[in-house]
Every structure is written in structure tokens, then in C-alpha cells.
């Protein structure tokens, strides 16, 4: 069973629809939208979607979801954070300095601040594959995917794909079973569905 964590930040319709469209779910509807830590504890895979403000991730701690994610990922269960879900995997974000992230990756997320740079970063931008990885298997270097965000995570040792917008940032991070995508695979056409399929097949 795949747990899609709902922490009341935006709508999940597109993510659910795209998981269904991969054809890689064990059974039709083999994903559950949940805000219950006990359901997360029973999950074989965990997806954390997210749009909006980093502050919304404080609900994860308040509701005991962070603890359940820590337990399951320590047990090797694959985890995928999308957009703010990726940012949450880092130590924190200047968007909400009082809210700590999971800290699976070092560094802090910060706002695009180069002069003459439109913010948010909205649209299709290219991925530079940094090294072969589970999520990017079968993906061509330079593939375009859809981003929409104002804050970005730094490039770290576990960055497997980099995007460039006023400098490089982490488009995909992977550390064993803990993974994140800054772009929206559910809105990135065939390339996005490929990434989701790669994740679901782990």
C-alpha cells in the first residue's frame, strides 16, 4: 500500500491521478490518502506531495507524521517528497526559519534572489543528470520537466539531477530510500510518469 500524506497544503488530485496512470500500482487504487501516522506505519511506500508554504510542514511534526516517516524510512521504506516535500527533507528553509525540516540532507532552502530573475520559477526547465540513479533511470539528460516554486534547495552530494535558474539547485535528491523531486512529476508529461514508475517499482 502506498501512503500519500495529506497535510492540508494544496490539492492532491493530480498526484493521485498520475500514480494511477503509471500502471505500476500493485492494484488499482493501491494508494491511500492519509494524515494518520499509523497508516503511514503500514505503508510499503510513502509519497509526500506539497505545494505552498514551508510552514505547512509543521503539521507533519504536530500530527506525529514526521515520527512515522522517520521510523519507516529507517526501516528502508522508499519515500518520495515532491516540491515542498523535497524541501522538507533538508534542514530547513528561510521561508519559515522556525520550522525544522527532516534533515536527511544538509543545507537550507532559500528564495531565488538573482537580479532580473522572475520569481516564482514557473515552467519547463531542463534536468542535468548528475549521476545515474534509481529515479532517473531511462531519463535522458536535458529532459524538460515542470517547476513552480519560489524557494529552492542547494546542490548537495546526494543531488542526482540539477536544474539551473539563476544558478544550480537540487531538482532530484536521492539518498538510499529517501528521495525528492523539486519539480512536479505529475505535471511533467511522460518524463514525470517515468520518474513515478521508477519510484513505484522499487
Amino acid at each position, binding site marked *: 500500500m502506498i501512503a500519500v500524506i495529506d497535510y492540508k497544503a*494544496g490539492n492532491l*488530485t*493530480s498526484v493521485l491521478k498520475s500514480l494511477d496512470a503509471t500502471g505500476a500500482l500493485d492494484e488499482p487504487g493501491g494508494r491511500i490518502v492519509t494524515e494518520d501516522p499509523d497508516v503511514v506505519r503500514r505503508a510499503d511506500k510513502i509519497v509526500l506531495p506539497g505545494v*505552498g508554504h514551508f510552514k505547512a510542514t509543521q503539521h507533519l511534526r504536530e500530527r506525529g507524521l514526521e515520527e512515522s516517516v522517520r521510523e519507516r524510512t529507517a526501516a528502508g521504506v522508499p519515500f518520495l517528497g515532491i516540491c515542498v516535500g523535497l524541501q522538507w527533507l533538508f534542514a530547513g528553509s528561510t521561508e519559515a526559519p522556525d520550522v525544522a525540516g527532516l534533515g536527511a540532507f544538509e543545507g537550507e532552502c532559500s528564495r531565488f534572489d538573482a537580479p532580473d530573475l522572475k520569481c516564482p520559477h*514557473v*515552467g*519547463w*526547465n531542463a534536468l542535468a543528470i548528475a549521476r545515474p540513479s534509481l529515479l532517473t533511470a531511462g531519463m535522458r539528460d536535458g529532459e524538460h520537466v*515542470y517547476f513552480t516554486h519560489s524557494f529552492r534547495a542547494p546542490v548537495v552530494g546526494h543531488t542526482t539531477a540539477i536544474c539551473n535558474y539563476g544558478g544550480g539547485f537540487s531538482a532530484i535528491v536521492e539518498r538510499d530510500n529517501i528521495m525528492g523531486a523539486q519539480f512536479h512529476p505529475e505535471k*511533467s508529461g511522460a518524463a514525470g510518469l517515468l520518474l513515478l514508475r521508477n519510484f513505484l517499482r522499487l
Partner: protein
Amino acid sequence: MLTKRIIACLDVRDGRVVKGVQFEDIIDAGDPAALAARHAAAGADEIVLLDITATHEGRGTLLDTVRRTAAKLFVPFAVGGGIRSSDDATAVFDAGADKVSINSAALSDPMLIDQIGRRFGAQAVVVAIDARRAGNAADAAEVFVSGGRKATGRKAVEWAREAEQRGAGEILLTSMDSDGMRTGFDCELTAAISQAVQIPVIASGGAGTAQHFVDVFAQGRADAALAASIFHFGVADARALKQELARAGVPVRLPC
């Protein structure tokens, strides 16, 4: 490099596309779901569905149309037309839209931008501005509502700034002077708005040739452009348009 977006627009009335591209292999050329899928396959970076249904009865049909269109669409999908409240927006998001485009309702109740933005995120709120210059300087362009029938007395540049401050994620700017003329986008107006705000600006109105898109991305500083009737005249589809743009040096995402 961030590419320039080509957004395909479907005008829908009572659940049917009233003007759109008639792809050869689509049996029902009035079906929004079939047309949206074809535009996406041809390389459109995004789909906008504008509901021009005048009646309240048509609203229920709209949600069904959004649901059917969103079901097999894996590119961003925006819906506009007749969204007057946060509840209207919620219903459209629940049906599968990623963004809502609000126009007249935002002008009569600007807090609507804040409300939808707070609940669904700024990326989900597009503020559509219909502006007319009538020969004046771009900075003096005035905002019109109710499908361009009613002047508001507000300057487009100022309204765009307010929309941004309230939490809009993008501006969809339609030049009423250029709309339907096929003589090119209003690059001056687009540039004036684009330089006034930090959020992306989508240009609309006046496209007749691929060169018009090249111009609005360069001189007009547009981040995206809406393609509607151009697909009727001369340019076959998003793929053909993007190939021409790529040859002209515009960064675009070419479909596989």
C-alpha cells in the same frame, strides 16, 4: 534554461469547444478532453480551458468537463471563466484543475486572490487582466471586465502590481486592442506589465504568425504566450510553432 511556454487555449461553452484546432484524427472536434490531450501530445506546455458559458445551468457541465479533461492530462491545466468565490475555485480544483484564472471577480473582490492563494498556494492563482490602450501609452492601459464590456478606471500596471502583492502566481494579460486582429501581440503593453511585476506574465491577443511569438518573448518580455486562433491560420499545431521558435533562437521544450 527555463523555456518559454506555449499555452493552448480552449474556449468552451456548455461543455463544447467553440473554437479550437480540428486535429485530423479526432472524430469529435468539439470535445475538450480529446482536444486537450492532442494539444499536450503536440507539445503544448500547458492547457487553459476558458468557460464562456453564460448561464448558471452550464456551471455543473463545466465541472464535469474539467474532470473529463483533467483525467488524462499530465501537463499543467488551468481553468477560467465564472469563478467568483473561493468555493467556485475549490470545486474546480477538486475536479482536477491545477490553476484557476480569475478576472472580473478579482476586481470586484480583490481579497479573492488572497483567499485562494492562501488555501491552494500562489502557483494555483492566475489573475487575468483584459487591458485596452486605445492609442495611449502602455502605462496608461485601462482594465476592462465582463468580457471587455465594462471599463474599471484602473490602470493595468497598477492592478498587476496589486494582484502580485495579494499573492497571484502569474498574470494572464490580454490586449483588447490586438485580440482577434492577428497582427501580433502588444509587445509594449506586455513589456510594461512584465517589468512592473516579478511574477511570470502570459501574453494573449493578436497572434497570427510564429514571428509574433518570437517578438513577444523578446521585446514583450513575456514568459509564456497563449495560442488560440493561430492554430486555425497557417501554423498547424504546437509542434510546428515550437520548431519555428527554436529556429529563431527561442528556448522551447520540443516534444519527443
